[in-house]
């Protein structure tokens, strides 16, 4: 009778060998949930497989490659590394697979990246360059660490507050309108908050997602310690990447569960939706616009809490104790939509692929840095969907998504407006 001891420890790919072996190539990782299948177009969910066609650029192919690597059938080479990194790690495959099966696709792919780096073949040179910037100045742009809270000049924060606002690199250095809007919203509801200033390091997403786990752990440990020192129990952020990294990846890196971290992470949209229920936020301004919402992968299907597990896998793959499975069911899906629908004047329309079936903006997993043409191609496919539903503006809750969509729009000359949801809420409450 087969029996093995396994853990949700991503530094050893062997822990996910079962998942690699049990892939049945049903392509649930590729197609939109068949129940929601919209027809002959917009029918797939994986940018990598659609763009590059070869199975090496699909979840099922990568699982086969990972297994073959474990079995010694193949070794890392340039094509293999390219196939590994031309993937946004958007989690579409993982949620799609778990519609029917109980396989840990996302973790297996992350584990493959970690091994790729550990064996000296990854990450891509562009990822190493960003790692150097993070090491030196603690942000992805390499801007002076001391400039991190420049956006907050004139904004009053409260050192005793229970909320710590984790701004993220994009908000701090590139899209300062987002943190300013976020601060306004918090203030409008009477919620006091503090910021970490230059003690806020890059959350580590660009490191962790590219397999640089040791470097990611350093950044994570610093942030975890700073949060603990601050005495805050709640970390609020307006960045989907930071949200998922603090909530899911930090515990994952240290073989812990989200509930063990000593803080809770909330996204701005969760906070605002809660305030709407309490009646402490009012949307006063009419915004006459047809808008749609893009589910950022890290806030949506990938955002469920991480539960560390170790135990036995027995006959038929039965786990003991029962392994927890994150299926993407409880992502932050409804809150942003409810917010947008509540703003007077807004004509809200959903895109064709939404929630767990959403098409990634294209930026994640290190793709925007190493393969900008692929990132732009993915964004263009999503923008076609925006056109298809006739929306004038695309709203997202992730600065990285906004950045990538904006670049694609600049390149194509399209007239779709892209806004972060914090900016939209701020417009509505002014």
């Amino acid at each position, binding site marked *: 009778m*087969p029996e093995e001891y396994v853990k949700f420890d991503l530094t050893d790919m062997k822990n996910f060998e079962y998942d690699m072996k049990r892939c049945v190539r049903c392509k649930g990782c590729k*197609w939109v949930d*068949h*129940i929601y299948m919209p027809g*002959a177009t917009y029918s797939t969910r994986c940018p990598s497989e659609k763009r590059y*066609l070869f199975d090496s650029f*699909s979840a099922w192919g990568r699982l086969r490659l990972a297994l073959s690597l474990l079995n010694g059938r193949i070794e890392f080479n340039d094509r*293999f590394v390219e196939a590994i990194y031309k993937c946004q790690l958007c989690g579409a495959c993982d949620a799609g697979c778990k519609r029917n099966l109980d396989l840990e696709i996302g973790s297996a792919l992350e584990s493959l990246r970690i091994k790729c780096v550990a064996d000296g073949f990854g990450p891509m040179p562009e990822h190493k360059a960003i790692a150097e910037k993070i090491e030196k100045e603690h942000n992805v742009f390499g801007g002076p660490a001391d400039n991190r809270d420049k956006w907050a000049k004139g904004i009053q924060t409260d050192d005793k507050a229970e909320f710590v606002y984790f701004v993220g690199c994009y908000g701090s250095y590139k899209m300062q309108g987002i943190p300013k809007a976020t601060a306004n919203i918090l203030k409008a509801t009477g919620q006091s908050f503090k910021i970490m200033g230059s003690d806020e390091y890059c959350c580590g997403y660009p490191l962790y997602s590219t397999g640089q786990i040791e470097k990611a752990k350093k950044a994570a440990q610093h942030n975890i310690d700073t949060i603990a020192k601050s005495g805050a129990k709640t970390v609020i952020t307006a960045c989907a990447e930071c949200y998922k990294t603090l909530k899911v990846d930090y515990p994952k890196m240290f073989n812990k569960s989200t509930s063990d971290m000593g803080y809770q992470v909330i996204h701005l949209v969760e906070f605002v939706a809660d305030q709407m229920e309490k009646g402490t936020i009012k949307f006063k301004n009419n915004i006459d616009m047809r808008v749609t919402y893009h589910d950022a992968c890290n806030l949506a299907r990938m955002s469920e809490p991480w539960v560390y597990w170790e135990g036995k896998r027995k006959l038929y793959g039965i786990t003991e104790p029962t392994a927890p499975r994150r299926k*993407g069911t409880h992502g932050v899906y409804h809150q942003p939509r409810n917010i947008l629908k509540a703003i007077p004047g807004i004509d809200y329309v959903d895109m064709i692929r939404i929630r767990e079936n959403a098409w990634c903006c294209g930026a994640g997993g290190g793709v925007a840095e190493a393969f900008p043409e692929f990132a732009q191609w993915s964004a263009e496919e999503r923008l076609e969907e925006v056109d298809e539903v006739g929306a004038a503006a695309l709203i997202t809750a992730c600065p990285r998504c906004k950045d990538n969509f904006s670049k694609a729009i600049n390149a194509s000359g399209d007239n779709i407006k892209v806004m972060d949801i914090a900016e939209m809420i701020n417009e509505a409450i002014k």
Partner: protein
Amino acid sequence: MTIPQAAYKVLEAIVGPDYISQDPIDCEAHTPGPNGFETDLGVATILKSPGCVIFPSTTEEVQKIVKTCNRYKVPFIPISTQWWSGRGAAKVEDALMIDLKRMDQCDIDDKHMFAVVGSGLIYSQLQEEAMKRGLYTTIPGGGSQVGVVANHILYGSSPLNYRTCIANRRILGVEWVLPDGEILRLGSCALDKDDYLWGEGIGPDLRGMIRGFSPGWMGSMGIVTKMSVKLVPFQPDKPMPVGISPDTAVELPLKRINWYNFILPSKDALVKAMYEIANAEIGAGLTKVPLFWRAIAKANNKEEFWELWDQESEETVAAMNVLRVLLIGFTSEKQLEYEERVLQDIIVKDLGGKQTRTKPTDESWVKNADSASMWMMCGGYTSLEFDFEAISHAVAKGVDCSKLKKGYTPPLMKAYGDQGWFQVGDYGHLALFEFLTYQDPDDEQKHKVDEWSVALSKMNIENRYYTAQLASHKPLFLTGPAYGPDYHKWMIRFKEEFDPDALSNPPGPADTDLFIQEAEWMQKVKDWPAPKIEANKNPKFE
């Protein structure tokens, strides 16, 4: 391993450098297994990585590719979704895998109710496009993720075949690149290549040839690049999707579509109910459901499934005669009301059946079919017995399959005497019986599953049962002489005529024979004469 470089250059010129690769990484990724349909069985031991992968986008490209393969003697394997992984994989070294996913055309003629589809289009795509137009197709047991073309060639069985017949009888016009690269057009497009209206053409109807002997050629008789398939009028209220993964379903317009579950007092009563419902000419689907499917539906994961299933016994399974009926008011709401009354009269009043609760939604058969979830319970699954015969045949065969299975359990999943499932086809004239095989692919006794497959063949021959899977899972040289008239000889003669160099997915249709010949553990059960099978040649026989 790779294909001749001169051939590669020609192929690259046909599709362009972005659509071809002989990189070992790409070839390894295109190698099915270790799991998937059939690849958790012994037949996986004969699978090879392809030497090259190519993605054509037009029939003209496919034709040029096949002609190039003939010129350089490169074996080729066409795939659309590669769902049937065991057959959609090379069995010879240095083969070219022709992946047809780019050919996903879907043109629907609303007025004449047919769709012209490319090889890369899948069922859920077609179903949605059809339903937007008030039409429908039947989602097969293979799942909504399978290729429409491949599945129509295969057979395309679904509970909704109760009214529509199985899919392979709904093939209309066909565009077919033969193994030598010539294009053969069937039906009305034989006369006008753009006219896909009709299945009948000049001369003999060659659709039988495309299907081979019941389950199709599995890519060993060239490549169908385009096909028109019949669509059927639906009712006007489109079922709408609800829920978040994994709990998604279509919400049924209950005045027009509804599922009904009944427990009948005995198996005889269940069979009688099927005949009576068909006799009354009501219903859109009738299935006898295995009890463990109920456990699958209730469980959130395999651990919960086993907790539920392990509470069962031979007695509880034998007592649970579940009949699931789908009614659709195709013409009106009144049709559904009428059929519901007739159904109640037959099952509850006349046969003492009891109606149980059903959800007002559909997870499988209307838009989706969850075939992938079949792997959830044990990690391994294959459909090794599938028939199109009478209801009485399905019942008798279920009993015999169940008895035989006991000798192979474990490694087969403990089934407490479950006798398989069947669906009624063609208004009661057919039963589509299936006996499913579940096992843990890591079980140390896994070779017994291969023996079980052959034992099923022998049982069928001995008890004179028909089976639809003669030339796929079954050894050609065991079943051919028994089922006759010598169908194996016909298959091989056809293959020799159209593909003398055995380039189209060799050694089809004798893959299973090759596996049995090669596998040491199968020698103890191989007691029938067969010629030596060579992977790259057509089989020879006396």
